[in-house]
């Protein structure tokens, strides 16, 4: 395959940045999208141009490190992570535009690399169950109905990639936050801190500059882990309950 690649290049956080155009021949349909960029980087390095910076680590769809806007879609045309996208999803001669996540709360650090540390700061505000090491009761002392455990698991699969934010016209992180609220809220262990968790996480979310949710649903469509939109309803429900409880 031959491709034309239009790629965002930005030397550093304060640089303005611009789209650069590159030609790449000999792309195999079996390559992953990031392997295609590796090949381009080898070519650039040989030509004396600095390789394009982009994030990835596990390259198997689980660490959440990768994430690119590909032709305007977060993680590209398939329901998967950028690292699990393969070139067979594109056709010979195609032009592909590649940009970083775009969101006020995710500033660009260089080229396609953004700063997602706001997610960690949201978790710091309550995305956990307070239990010190060694103080846990015997695991079987609290049975959890299988369906609750399954639902908790399904939303706990969020990989923290940020595609939901990148896809949202408001730049909201509600899907990410709702997944965590739902994960912990489904479990008996998560109940004692349920109210404070949602209130504090939402406050941090807003302080980081993420936008509000207006129920567009672009987040869930872009989510590689198919986190359902109803976690946001759960988030809102929990928030209302907490406020009713006087938080």
């Amino acid at each position: 395959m031959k491709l034309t690649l239009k790629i965002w290049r930005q030397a550093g956080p304060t640089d303005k940045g611009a789209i650069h155009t590159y030609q790449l021949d000999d792309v195999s349909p079996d390559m992953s999208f990031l392997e295609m960029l590796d090949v381009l980087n080898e070519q650039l390095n040989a030509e004396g141009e600095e390789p394009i910076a982009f994030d990835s680590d596990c390259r198997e769809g689980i660490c959440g490190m990768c994430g690119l806007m590909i032709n305007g879609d977060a993680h590209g045309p398939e329901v998967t992570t950028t690292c699990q996208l393969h070139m067979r999803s594109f056709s010979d001669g195609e032009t592909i535009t590649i940009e970083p996540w775009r969101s006020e709360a995710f500033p660009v650090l260089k080229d396609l690399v953004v700063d997602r540390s706001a997610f960690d700061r949201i978790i710091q505000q309550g995305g956990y169950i307070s239990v010190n090491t060694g103080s846990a009761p015997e695991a079987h002392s609290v049975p959890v109905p299988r369906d609750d455990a399954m639902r908790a698991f399904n939303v706990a699969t969020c990989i923290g990639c940020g595609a939901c934010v990148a896809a949202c016209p408001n730049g909201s992180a509600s899907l990410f936050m709702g997944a965590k609220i739902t994960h912990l809220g489904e479990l008996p262990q998560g109940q004692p801190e349920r109210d404070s968790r949602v209130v504090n996480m939402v406050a941090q979310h807003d302080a980081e500059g993420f936008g509000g949710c207006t129920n567009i649903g672009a987040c869930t469509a872009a989510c590689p882990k198919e986190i359902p939109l109803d976690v946001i309803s759960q988030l809102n429900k929990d928030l209302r309950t907490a406020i009713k409880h006087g938080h």
Partner: protein
Amino acid sequence: MDMPDTVTAAEASHSGFLDGDYDDAAGYYTPGAPLVDSKAPDGPISERWQNRKFEARLVNPANRRKLSIIIVGTGLAGASAAATLGEAGYRVKSFCYQDSPRRAHSIAAQGGINAAKNYKEDGDSVHRLFYDTVKGGDYRSRESNVYRLAEVSTNIIDQCVAQGVPFAREYGGLLDNRSFGGVQVSRTFYARGQTGQQLLIGAYQALERQVAAGTVSMYTRHEMLELITIDGKARGIIARDMVTGEIETHLADVVVLASGGYGNVFYLSTNAMGCNVTAAWRAHRKGAYMANPCFTQIHPTCIPVSGEHQSKLTLMSESLRNDGRIWVPKNQADCEKDPRDIPEEDRDYFLERIYPSFGNLVPRDIASRAAKNMCDEGRGVGPEVEGVRRGVYLDFAAAIERLGRDGVEEKYDNLLDMYERITGENPYEVPMRIYPAVHYVMGGLWVDYDLQSTIPGLFVTGEANFSDHGANRLGASALMQGLADGYFVLPHTIRDYLADGPFEEIAEDHPAVVEARESVKGRIDHFLSVNGTRSVDSYHRELGNIMWEYCGMERTETGLKKAIDLIRGLKDDFYRNVKVLGSAETLNQSLEKAGRVADFFELGELMCIDALNRRESCGGHFRGESQTEDGEAMRHDEEYAYVAAWEWAGEDSIPVLHKEDLVYTAIEMKQRSYK
């Protein structure tokens, strides 16, 4: 699957081995003094850990705030330790190279985590988990450490459940277990195929809670590039801020490395792209011994290489071997054919043929080597990469017939989907292709019972240390070890060291600190100034090929000696001809990789020397010279029942070998047999 039949070591050490006179590695190393674990307690094995915890001195809660701990790594081993030590009130600094601690490579673990809960009442116990682990490690691990691992395993599950880890449950709401990795009891806890992810998120959340509490300072996108030692003790690290390029000095009273495994020395492995040996290797160069570095685990069920662009390999859970049948064509001429057109009588189900009693369920190393042999014979399938077809079929046709497509879907759907996504082939219609890949390293920095390295004040946990898995690791035991070390072992043993505090304040202009900082800057300047012709990746790939060819599934004296020469030559060329563009003052991924690859060269050479020295086959280490007449591994306990701990002797010297004898008091050594 059943446990293998066993014969005693005496029965097995028959012909073939001549009195232990071999010294294949002569000229490549200097013999050193024997090494003993000074912290290993005596007494009955089941009381050792209790005794050690009691003897380890306490630190007054009021003093803890004055004591500082650096922890490099936020995988299961690092995040759990940082959270726990933060909760205890110490001042902790935690480092990872990713943009968030939640992305450490532990996140990718699929299958599960072992614990001796005996919830199934199927005869499991601490002693049985201990026994299985030592035996699985082919009697090359340290008995006391393994027993403790089995002992604390049960606490791990309690802790994780309390944190909200959504393990699989039965209808009654209690935890489900499965049998994993060839053991007869069901002791593996799991969260679908994402156990590592769920456990790590639990530890990450506990860690972030401490960040909010102010006990832990988190340094993401920071790479440790040097260890600072003062008066022989570990006192800090030099780290590079990977965004600004700033070279930072971080001082502390004690340093913990939880930096993971070094399987990426092979270039292609199931590890994440950034997994590296730099933290451990820099410590090694400062005096920490490296133990059994050649012990590598190669996993049989990975998706094969599809072309020269390949950047990493993907593991598919071993559980596929429960229902899939592995075969290659009997005739080379059929290798290009559509497998569906190859009639039953022309297929060679080689594992079922060679190992009739275990068939497709033989241990990882045996399955891997057999697949390699088939491909070496020219009967591999799939695309030719560099002239050879490296793949064997894993066929679900029989399982689909037996269980129905729905039945197979229910058990394996996410795995089969993943396969289809990567290869573009539908495994319900065409047999899958698999090939072995490097997956885990049992070797690592030497530690004593307290998890302290040979550098006082430097502790090592998780995959980065060597102690628990011997020459081979059982499935679902790495997660157990990482969390055991971090939640339940290190917090107790480290306090005995910290009880000596307060420690002398170190100034940033202390000569040893300045020296460490300057050496890091010097290395970076060098990489940027060579301005040669070859990219870092091209060197890494070539190094990986050498390692895979000569220090992979089968190792021989001639091969290893050749590899050492090749590595030395390639390393030389790297320092003279590598091309790293960009600057040191910005995010520069080529520069990051250059530092890692430079350390991989030195590690790779040591792995070959270690493999050369060990003229026996044990666990994942198969020496061509040490096999039975029908090609099975032969261990030599008389000569090699020791840990090979290597000391760095300087840039232009050969390493020094220290041996720690392995003594088993609670278990009898047996030779394994799977025929």
